């Protein structure tokens, strides 16, 4: 199948891509744009490791074709830090062992970022609900919940 040529707005930049219509947004970000922070964990929308923000809202990049994201604002984990300066949320994950292997972390961070913007002072139970669509196999979630609570209090 011939590739389609279009552009995606990623982390504030217009990026030209040339991919088959069937190419997932996830694979496009990773393979065409070199943004490998979004990870394929299941490729059927359950694990959340591929989560990115679409117009500010978390979505599964494995359940979208790149073509569907044309004209939308995409944010990936690579946009969170300001140069070498981690965001408050990222720093909270570092300080509170909000990660171990780090594979779920980009999706977790983006989910938490959007959540905290809407609910800046959440309860622990609300945090658990907010991240319940993002699977982590290493931490048992406690470090993640603690990190997000710490970021909210910072």
């Amino acid at each position, binding site marked *: 199948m011939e590739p389609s040529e279009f552009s995606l707005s990623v982390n504030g930049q217009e990026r030209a891509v040339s991919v088959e219509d069937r190419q997932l947004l996830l694979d496009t970000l990773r393979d065409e744009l070199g943004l490998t922070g979004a990870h394929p964990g299941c490729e059927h929308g359950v694990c959340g490791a591929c989560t990115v923000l679409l117009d500010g809202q978390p979505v*599964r990049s494995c359940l979208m074709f790149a073509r569907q994201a044309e004209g939308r604002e995409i944010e990936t984990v690579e946009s969170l830090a300001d140069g070498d300066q981690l965001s408050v949320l990222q720093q909270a994950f570092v300080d509170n062992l909000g990660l171990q292997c780090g594979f779920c972390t980009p999706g977790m961070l983006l989910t938490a970022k959007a959540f905290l913007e809407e609910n800046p002072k959440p309860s622990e139970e609300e945090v658990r609900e907010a991240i319940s669509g993002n699977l982590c196999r290493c931490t048992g979630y406690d470090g993640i919940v603690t990190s997000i609570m710490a970021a909210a209090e910072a």
Partner: protein
Amino acid sequence: MKPAAFVYERAESIDDALARLAECGDEVKVVAGGQSLVALMNMRFARPDSLLDITRIEGLRGWTLAGGTLEIGALTTQTDLERDGELAKHCPLLAEAIPHIAHVAIRNRGTIGGTIAHADPAAELPIVLLALRGSVTLRKQGSERVVAADDLFYGFLMTAIAEDELLVSVNMPSTGAGTGTAFEEFARRPGDFALVSVACVVDHDGDQVGPARVVLGGVDSTPFALDGLQDLEGAGRSDAVERAAALVREQVDPTGDIHGSTEYRRNLASELTRRAFERALTR
């Protein structure tokens, strides 16, 4: 786990979409949020020749209230519905069901039209629609029709929507004083497809039960509307609850799978009906 090749098309307007569907609706699969469809495509269980993206069509998002009926645009996302406090006042059952749908990231993309058209018997919104005796508005080139929920679902992932038709709105009656509603669901983990879900709509005066509607998800190949509830009319509250639960046990015959046997699911259906009915009577 990568999808087979297809051609992506984007409809810029309803007319545009309807023209395309009229031309070759058998080859074209309409996609909105795609939260069920794309997973199936990744596994190559679904392999359409063409995908018609309707999400850019203006005017299919949001809702209006006219004559006691909510007309909800097909492209309204589940998150839109979840955050709409006004909508919740008119349709508390819908508001109660929405948070059970998967997780935030899925609800951000998933649309009300998409989930109704996909017609998964374990999904939440089809049973809500059926419980409320709602309807959908279907449009094709040159005409439009309204199909009642009772006539919409007729097989596993199958609906009365024709290949050349586009679902443009989902219509639900608003429920007011005198009608109690409740939604119950049990899934292996919160956010998973329901092992059993129940939507209850009961007219009552606080003591006696009037006309009632109970629809169950996850127990059959389509959303399952319980029969025989008219016999409960006039019954007292606790009596009605027990009888509704008993009706479920008599009528429901779910297929067992790795998550639970027929027997388990039947009892679960009965128990959740008991809980939902009981709560509906307090509202």
